[in-house]
C-alpha cells in the first residue's frame, strides 16, 4: 500500500497500476510464505528454502521459455514430454558412451551436448510445423506431446531408463552441490532468467515477439520475419527444456514415461500467474519466475501440514492459482480506491 501511494505521488496514475500489476504475484508469494511460516516455522529453515528454490528450477527454466512462446501468441504443450524424451536419450547415450569415454566428465558433457541438440531440434520441429506447416500451435504441440511421451515409453520398454552408476557419481554434483550457498540448479535458473529478461525486454527480438503476439498482421507489415521469430521462440523453449533436463537427470538418474508429466501445464500456469497474457502480446519474465516459485511453494506448504486432507491438495492448488491471477488482474480496483 505504501509503495503504491509513493508511486502515486511521483508519477501519473498509470504508473501505479503498472506497479500493482508487477506486485500482484510478489504479494501472493509473500502471503504464501507467511502462511507457510505460521503453519510450521521449519518452513523458513535454510534447508527447506534451498529445496524450494532447487525444485522451482525445472518448472522455472521451462516457464522462461514458455514466456517467449506465449508472448508471441503461441503455446507449447509438448515441453513435459520433450523433457522426458530428452532425459531418456541422454541416459541411453551416456550409458553407451561409458565403454569408449569412461564414466568421467567427457561422458557427462556428451550427454549435455546431446540434450541441447535435441532440445533445439525438437523446438525447431514445433516451430516449423506451426509456421511453415500452418497448423495451430495447440494441435502441433499436442501431437508432438504424444510423440515424445510414447518415444520415451518405447526407449524404456515401458519401464525406467537408469543412468550407469559410475556416471551418476560424476554427474550427481550438478544437482546436489552448491556454489556460494546456492545449489547449481538455482544458479542455472538465475542465469536463464537473466538472459530471458534481457532478451525479452532489451532486444529487438523481444520486441518482435511482443509485436507478433499483439497483432501478427501489423508485425508482418512492419518488416518483421514473423515465421522466423515464431520458430525461434519454440527453439528457445526447446533449449530451456534442455537446460531443465540437464539439471534434472542427475537428481534421480532415471527417466520413465512418468517423467515430466504435466510440466507443460505447470509451466503455462507459472507464466500466466506471472502476468503474461495467454493470448500473447505481453510478456513478463520476472512474473514467470515468481509464478514458478508460487507453484512450488504451494506443494511444499501442503506437505508441511496435515490440516488439509490429502485428497484436497488439488483444490488448494487450484484456488491459490486463481487467487494469484486475480490479485494480478484486479489492479484497477486498488487504483480506484486510491483516487477517491
Amino acid at each position, binding site marked *: 500500500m505504501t509503495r503504491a501511494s509513493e508511486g502515486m505521488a511521483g508519477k*501519473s496514475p498509470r504508473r501505479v497500476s503498472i506497479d500493482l500489476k508487477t506486485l500482484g504475484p510478489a504479494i501472493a508469494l509473500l502471503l504464501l510464505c507467511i502462511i507457510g511460516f505460521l503453519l510450521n516455522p521449519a518452513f523458513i529453515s535454510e534447508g527447506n528454502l534451498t529445496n524450494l528454490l532447487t525444485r522451482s528450477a525445472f518448472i522455472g527454466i521451462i516457464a522462461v521459455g514458455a514466456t517467449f512462446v506465449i508472448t508471441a501468441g503461441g503455446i507449447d504443450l509438448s515441453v513435459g514430454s520433450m523433457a522426458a524424451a530428452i532425459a531418456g536419450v541422454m541416459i541411453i547415450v551416456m550409458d553407451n558412451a561409458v565403454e569408449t569415454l569412461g564414466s568421467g566428465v567427457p561422458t557427462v558433457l556428451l550427454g549435455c551436448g546431446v540434450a541441447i541438440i535435441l532440445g533445439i531440434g525438437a523446438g525447431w520441429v514445433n516451430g516449423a510445423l506451426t509456421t511453415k506447416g500452418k497448423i495451430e500451435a495447440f494441435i502441433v504441440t499436442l501431437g508432438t506431446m504424444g510423440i515424445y511421451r510414447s518415444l520415451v515409453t518405447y526407449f524404456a520398454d515401458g519401464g525406467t531408463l537408469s543412468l550407469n552408476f559410475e556416471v551418476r557419481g560424476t554427474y550427481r554434483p550438478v544437482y546436489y552441490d552448491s556454489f556460494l550457498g546456492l545449489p547449481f540448479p538455482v544458479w542455472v535458473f538465475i542465469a536463464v532468467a537473466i538472459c530471458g529478461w534481457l532478451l525479452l525486454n532489451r532486444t529487438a527480438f523481444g520486441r518482435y515477439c511482443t509485436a507478433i503476439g499483439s497483432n501478427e498482421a501489423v508485425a508482418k507489415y512492419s518488416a518483421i*520475419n514473423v515465421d522466423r521469430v515464431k520458430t525461434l521462440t519454440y527453439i528457445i523453449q526447446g533449449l530451456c527444456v534442455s537446460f531443465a533436463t540437464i539439471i534434472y537427470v542427475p537428481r534421480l538418474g532415471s527417466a520413465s514415461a512418468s517423467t515430466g508429466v504435466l510440466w507443460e501445464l505447470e509451466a503455462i500456469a507459472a507464466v500466466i500467474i506471472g502476468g503474461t497474457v495467454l493470448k500473447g502480446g505481453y510478456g513478463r519474465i520476472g512474473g514467470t519466475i515468481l509464478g514458478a516459485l508460487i507453484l512450488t511453494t504451494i506443494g511444499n506448504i501442503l506437505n508441511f501440514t496435515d490440516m488439509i486432507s490429502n485428497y484436497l491438495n488439488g483444490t488448494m492448488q487450484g484456488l491459490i492459482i486463481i487467487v494469484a491471477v486475480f490479485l494480478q488482474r484486479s489492479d484497477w480496483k486498488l487504483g480506484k480506491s486510491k483516487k477517491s
Partner: protein
Amino acid sequence: MHAETSAPAAIIEAVNISKSFGPVPVLFSVSMDVRPGEVHALIGENGAGKSTLMKILSGFHDPTSGQIRLDGKPASLPPNGAAEKLGVVLIHQELNLAEQLTVEENVFLGRGMKKNGFLDRVAMRAAVQKHLDEIGLDILPTDRISSLTIAQKQMVEIVKAVSRNARILIMDEPTAVLTEEETLVFYRQVEKLKNSGVGIVFVSHKLNEVKAIADRVTILRDGQWIDTRPSQDLTPDMMAQMMVGRELSDLYPPMQEVDVDAEVVLAVDGLCTADVDSVSFSLRKGEILGFSGLIGAGRTAVFEAICGLAPIESGTIRLFGRDVGPMTVAEARNAGLAYLTKDRKEKGLLLNKKMQPNLTLFALPKFVKNFTIDRKAEEDALQRAIRRFDVRTLDPEITVGKLSGGNQQKLLLAKIMECDPKIVIIDEPTRGIDVGTKQQIYHFIAALAAEGVSVVVISSEMPEIIGICHRVIVMREGHITGVLTGDHINENEIMRYAAGLKREELH
C-alpha cells in the same frame, strides 16, 4: 434558438447537451434537432465531439447535463441500442453484422417472424427481398454477410434499420469506405428514406457530399456547437473553415513540377500476381504518383507484391536502376521502399501498445546498439516524431487504440518515415480523418517530394488524387487502364478509365 421557422416539428431534439468522461469534458451545451424527412449532416474535426453526440442521440451514452426530447417530450433513451424500439437507430462505422449469418438472419436477428412457434423463413425471406428490391441491391436474402462487399454490408445495415421502422437513422461516416459508384447508390437510398419521412443524421468528412445531400448542417468544433444552417447557405470551403476555425484555402499544397530528367527510382515491368495482371509503370525521384481506381481494382495488390507482402508470379522490378527479385518486407525497407497500409487498425498499428514501441517497430534494427535496443534513442525519436508530425495527445503513455483516427494516421506515417525511405507508398492517406489533419498530411507529402522522396498515393478520393499528384495511373480489374498527366487529371477522365469506359493502349 436558430431554427424557429415553419418547418415540421422535430422528431428528436438534443437540448443543451453537455458530456464529460470522468474529468474530461467533451461536449459543451450542444443543441441539435432532426426533423422528419431531412438529412442533417454533423461535421467537425476528429475529436470535435461528433461521435459522442451521436451516441447520446441514440442512447448509448447518457448526457451529463441537458435533455433529449422525443416528439417534443423529454425522454430518457434506453441504453445499449434499445432505443431502436423507439425508432432511433445508430449505424456504427464498424458495421455491426454477424459475419457468418445470412442477410435475412441479420435483418431479423433477435426478433424473427414466427408462425406456430417456428421461425417463418418464407415470410422473412419475402420481407427482406422486398426491401432489397426497393433499394435496388443485387444480393439474395440467403447470401452470407462475409461474402458481401463493404458497400453491400452498409446497405444491409440500412435495410435492417428500415425493417425496424426507424424514424431516425444516425450514420457514422457511411460513405468513408464506399467507391464513387457505391456512393451514388447510397445517395439514392438516402433520398428514398427521406421521402418516406425518416430523419437522417450523418457524419462525413467529405464536404462535397455534405453539400450534395444534406438539408441542414450542424458544425461542431472542440465540443462546442458552432452553427446549424441550411446547406444551400454553405459552401464546402465555408464548412471547412467553420470546422477548423481558420482559413483553409490551401487544403492542397502548391505543386512543384518534377524535373523531367529526374532519375527513375522504381520501374516495374509486367508484374503479375494473383490479383494483378501485367502491370508496368515507373516512378521518378521526387514524383508524387497517384493510383486511382475502384476499390478492388488491384492498386493495393500491386504494391503489396512489390514490397514483399504478397507473392509475385512474374515480372521485373528495377529499384534505383538495379534489378531486384522478389524481396522480403525487410529487404524492401533496407532498399528504401516503404509501404503504409490503408488498414491502420489491423495492419498498421499495435492498438494495445503505447506510441513508442509502435513508432520504432518498422525501423527497429536502426535502434539496436550492442544487441540491445537503445531506449534513449527511441525516446528521442518519439519526441521528434511528435513534433514533426504534430501528434496531439496529452499523455504520451496512452495506448495507441485510444488516439483519434487523425493522430493514429500521423503516428503511422511517422512510423514508416522512421526508416528514412526513398520511396513511400501511402495507401489511402486520409481515410476517416478530419480536414485539418488531411491538410497537414497533404503538405507533408508535398514536402517529402520536394526533398526528393518519391511518393505513391493510392486513394479512392478523387479530389486528393487530383489535388496532390503529378501523374495519375488508373487501374481496373488488375490492369492499368490509363496514365494521366497535367490537365488530363480530372474527375471525368479518371472515372472513365476506372469504370472501363476508356482504355489506353499502353505498350
